[in-house]
């Protein structure tokens, strides 16, 4: 039987590998690829991985990521790697780095938090990486978010 690749290599663009299983669609959302889009994109979910049991992969053609997009991806897929592809070759490969704080990236889950008002304030969170599941703490109201972080991304 002929073996086929699930997703073909891309010529130029970005491959986001080792995404936490089930988060590929949220990664696409972070990249603004929702609804109708011209972007050439491949996404595979829950495929076998050597490092972890399963993983998701997203390939986006002719596109490199902006720093704030990488910060957001790190929050929902802290083990992800970002591979820049040029002419079918991996030009650069970096693991996402979970920062100690994020600004303007996540909306506080507390509707009564000052960061959810008309006051001139940008949401800021500290990131607790000491546990297996990361935990964000709003620096204003101190409410924490540890589950469904993707739902709170701005």
């Amino acid at each position: 039987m002929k073996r086929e690749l699930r997703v073909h290599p891309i010529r130029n663009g970005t491959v986001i590998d080792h995404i936490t299983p089930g988060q590929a669609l949220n990664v696409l959302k972070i990249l603004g690829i929702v609804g109708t889009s011209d972007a050439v994109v491949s996404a595979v979910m829950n495929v076998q991985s050597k490092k972890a049991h399963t993983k998701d992969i997203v390939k986006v053609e002719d596109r490199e990521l902006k720093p704030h997009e990488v910060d957001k991806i790190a929050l929902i897929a802290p083990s992800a790697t970002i591979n820049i592809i040029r002419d079918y070759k991996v030009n650069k490969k970096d693991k996402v780095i979970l920062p100690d704080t994020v600004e303007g990236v996540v909306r506080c889950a507390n509707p009564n938090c000052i960061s959810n008002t008309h006051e001139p304030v940008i949401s800021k969170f500290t990131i607790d990486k000491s546990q297996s599941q990361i935990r964000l703490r709003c620096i204003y109201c101190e409410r924490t978010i540890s589950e469904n972080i993707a739902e709170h991304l701005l």
Partner: protein
Amino acid sequence: MFAKKHIISMRDFSRAEIDHILQRAEALETFASERSSDILAGRILAMLFYEPSTRTRLSFETAMKRLGGETISMVSTEASSAAKGEMLADTIRVVGEYADVIVLRHPKEGSTRMSAEMSDVPIINAGDGAGHHPTQTLLDLYTIKRESNLRNLNIVLIGDLKYGRTVHSLVYALSLYDAKISLVSPEELCIPSDIKEDLIKRRIDVYETTKLEDVMEYADVVYVTRIQKERFPDLSEYQKVAGSYRISLKSLKNCKEDMIIMHPLPRVDEIDTDVDSTKHAKYFKQAFYGVPVRMAVLSLVLGCDV
């Protein structure tokens, strides 16, 4: 150590810093009732209260005046520019030009942290929504220090442990003193899981129960909070629950001789008035201790030596 520092949340304090404030309060306690001082003469405290307050507002005002300072206050939000839709951030910038220190109570959580970012003068949090009220926690610790002991403390917290901001800040501060903490509440009002996880992470001895009688005899301090009617879908459920957490002379039968009862006040019916005349009742003394503690905080953030 504290000059120009904002007082926002107990999470900002180390145990050494708390001890420093409590020592300062002890040094100033004499000025809270017997005689006055002029160490804050020429200094102005602005009181911005966007929500009602009795004890906090009056004790800050008393503290400032007993130390020779002056106070200015926003009378009510209806009569101020807040009613015209002014942003809190702008109010803080303006008032900071008039006063040397600002005490702020605001309904939005995190409002004081934001104000601190905007302000050149120290901001003291007097309650931000369901968030923090650090001077209440400091006066609670001071009461324990003066009337019981912060070392080897066995404390019981009773009532609404889910929504009560007083309890959350106090529990965090007590963890710095390695206190043994018993949490007594109906199941629907137990302490939030993230706070409990924090305590476990800090290796604090925590015991949870729904029955007051399980822990009463071991307690050095019993800290009572109000269970609010609106937390329950129907009145009969509330009455059933509230009744089982009421402190009466009967519930004091097996307690330690030197056990003290505290309450942040206002009390509704969580403590029978018969209990007021017992040696255990320290809640009115606790309200008084708000003055020396706030004197300590004001003098420290204003950089005054005693």
